C-alpha cells in the first residue's frame, strides 16, 4: 500500500470538509473493497476520511413503511434487524449473504453502492426497491444513481448519507455465487410494490453493471409467480462473458435466479 493520511470524521459536514481539502482524498467506510484495492496498489488516495464514527450516518429506522438506513450501517445490522426482516425480508436476506461474516461486520451499504461493483448485491436490491439515495447535497433515485460499471451519479466529494426505501408488498433476492470469489455470478432482486408494479434488477451479469429487465417486470406485474417467467426471453447480447461463465450461461442464470427470487418473495 502506498502512503496515505488517515482522518477520522465526526460529522457529515466534517467529512465533506476533510475530503474537499485534497483532490486525491477518498471516503473510507467499511473499507472491505477500498483497502484490498489499496493493498494491490490499484488505488492510491492521498487521504482517507473514515466515516465509521459519524453517528448521523449509522442506524436503521422503519416508520409506517418508510425505511431509512444510514450509509455507514454495516451489512450485519441490516441482515439481523427485526424491523428490516418484517418490512423488507428480501433486503435482509441480501445483506445476510454479502461476503462472509467478517466482511459483514465492517462493510456498509453506502460503501457498496458508491463503489457500484458490477457483481455487488446491494445495487440490485436498491434498484428493484426504487430506493432514494440521500447525499449531503441532494436526493437521487436509484434509476439515476447507478450509471454503469463502477460508476455512479455522485459528484466529486459528494457523500452518501442514507438510503430511503418504501417497504414493498413483496421482495425476494436470489444469487448464484461465483464458487471462488463468492461474488454474484448472477443475482436477481424482485420487488412487488404497493401500486402493483414490479421491478426486477440484475447484478453480476450485465456488461455495464446492474440493470432492470423490462420483460420480466411486465410478466410479473400481471402474474406474480415463478411460472410467469417461463415465456420471458433474456437477451444475452449485453451480458458479461468471462472465464467463469459465458453470456448465454448468465442469461439462463438470470431467469433461474429470478424464479427463485419470486418464490422466495412468496
Amino acid at each position, binding site marked *: 500500500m502506498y502512503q*496515505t493520511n488517515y482522518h477520522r470524521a465526526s460529522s457529515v459536514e466534517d467529512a465533506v470538509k476533510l475530503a474537499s481539502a485534497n483532490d486525491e482524498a477518498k471516503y473510507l467506510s467499511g473499507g472491505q473493497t477500498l483497502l*484490498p484495492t489499496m493493498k494491490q496498489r490499484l488505488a492510491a488516495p492521498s487521504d482517507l476520511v473514515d466515516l465509521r464514527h459519524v453517528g448521523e450516518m449509522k442506524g436503521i429506522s422503519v416508520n409506517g413503511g418508510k425505511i431509512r438506513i444510514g450509509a455507514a450501517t454495516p451489512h450485519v445490522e441490516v441482515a439481523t434487524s427485526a424491523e428490516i426482516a418484517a418490512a423488507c425480508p428480501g433486503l435482509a436476506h441480501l445483506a445476510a449473504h454479502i461476503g*462472509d461474516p467478517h466482511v459483514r*461486520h*465492517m462493510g456498509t451499504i453506502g460503501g457498496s453502492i458508491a463503489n457500484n461493483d458490477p457483481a455487488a448485491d446491494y445495487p440490485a436490491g436498491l434498484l428493484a426497491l426504487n430506493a432514494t439515495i440521500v447525499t449531503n447535497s441532494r436526493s437521487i433515485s436509484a434509476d439515476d444513481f447507478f450509471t454503469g460499471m463502477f460508476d455512479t451519479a455522485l459528484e466529486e466529494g459528494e457523500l452518501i448519507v442514507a438510503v430511503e426505501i418504501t417497504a414493498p408488498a413483496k421482495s425476494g433476492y436470489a444469487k448464484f455465487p461465483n464458487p471462488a470469489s463468492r461474488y454474484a455470478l448472477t443475482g436477481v432482486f424482485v420487488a412487488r410494490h404497493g401500486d402493483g408494479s414490479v421491478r426486477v434488477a440484475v447484478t453480476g451479469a450485465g456488461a455495464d453493471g446492474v440493470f432492470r429487465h423490462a420483460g420480466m417486470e411486465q410478466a410479473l406485474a400481471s402474474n406474480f409467480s415463478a411460472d410467469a417467467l417461463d415465456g420471458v426471453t433474456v437477451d444475452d447480447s449485453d451480458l458479461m462473458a468471462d472465464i467463469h461463465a459465458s453470456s448465454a450461461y448468465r442469461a439462463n442464470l438470470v431467469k433461474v435466479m429470478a424464479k427463485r427470487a419470486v418464490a422466495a418473495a412468496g
Partner: protein
Amino acid sequence: MATVSMTVNGRSVSGQCEDRTLLVQFIRDNLGLTGTHVGCDTSQCGACVVHVDGKAVKSCTMLAAQADGAEVTTIEGLASGGELHPVQLAFREHHGLQCGFCTPGMIMSAVDMIRRHGGKLDEKTVRAELEGNICRCTGYHNIVKAVLDAASKMGDGARIAAE
C-alpha cells in the same frame, strides 16, 4: 507516523505507526503478538481474524488507525491463566487442525459464531459461517466437529460467555 492506542487482550497499549499500517501489522510487529496470521493478500483467507469491539473482523483489511480507541481480542487473549478457552479445547480434542496456520483465525471466527448463535448451531450454519476462513489442508470436517462440540458444551449461556 501517528500514535495509535487501543486495548488489546485487556491491556492498554499504544504505539507509533504509519497511517497505512494494517491492524494485523500493528498487532504482530508493534505488539509482538504473532498468533494472528497473514495467509493471503486479498482479504479472503481469514487467518488474521481478531475481534474488534466484540466483532470478528479481518485485521488485514482494517488500518491500525481505524482501531484507535477500540477493544481488540486476539487468539492470545482467549485462554485465561493456564486454562484453554472451550473452543481451543475442542479444536485440540477433535484434531481440528493439521498444519495449524489457519487455526487462530478459525478459532476467533468460531468464538464469534458461538457468541452470535449460542448453543443452537447446526452443521449447515457452521459450514456457511466459515465461508471467510480457508484451510489449505482442507481439514474442515474436524474443524466443524470442534465448533459444534464447543457450542454444545458452552450451551445457551455461550451468547454472553464466548469471551
